[in-house]
């Protein structure tokens, strides 16, 4: 069974803090993705990575950065958290082919006060 784990289920941070969200997959997938999920907006892609140290911006990269130093780990960084970044963050991974299924982690619900 594919397993995608995220470091925290719930996180509370203060405005201006630097926040790290970690994602680890155990299936040797090439692709990894970070989404944020907001009511009525569905899933929006923040960043994705198709290989170690490789990354591409998604649809809403502003205020975020990512790091992929190892194949199994993909980190999302909020450089200076703001209240409008309060959201559910979902990590996913997949094999490289376009027909491939994405496997999702359980999500991290982030509250920025």
């Amino acid at each position, binding site marked *: 069974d594919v397993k*995608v784990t995220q470091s925290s289920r719930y996180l509370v941070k203060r405005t201006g803090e630097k926040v790290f969200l970690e994602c680890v997959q155990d299936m040797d997938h090439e*692709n990894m*993705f970070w*989404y944020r999920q907001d009511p*009525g*907006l*569905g*899933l*929006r*892609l923040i960043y*994705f990575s*198709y290989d170690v140290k490789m990354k*591409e911006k*998604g649809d809403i990269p502003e205020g975020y950065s990512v790091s992929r130093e190892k194949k199994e780990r993909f980190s999302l960084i909020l450089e200076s958290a703001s209240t409008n970044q309060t959201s559910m963050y*979902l990590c*996913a991974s997949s094999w*490289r082919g*376009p*027909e491939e*299924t*994405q496997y*999702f*982690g*359980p*999500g991290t619900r982030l509250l920025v006060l």
Partner: protein
Amino acid sequence: AQSVTQLDSQVPVFEEAPVELRCNYSSSVSVYLFWYVQYPNQGLQLLLKYLSGSTLVKGINGFEAEFNKSQTSFHLRKPSVHISDTAEYFCAVRRFSGTYKYIFGTGTRLKVLA
């Protein structure tokens, strides 16, 4: 560019009744089509996907979807729903080539009533 429209944000239905969740997409190139389900407090998991061949695709938990190229639709159906089907359902598309990106719809919340 691709886009996905899920026309219904919420669908209430009684237990054992049939249900159809609608998905329309827009794309100038060929795409793969997916339906994912998100149960409360969980991540998304794949229900089914259309890659090629037969336009009727069967998935897990008794769900099926039909690809209609002329209407650019990929509606999800189940002949008889259970309380446990209460969840949010997302339609998604991905181009055959040129990008790793998936485009997700805004989701349909299915509420099954006893």
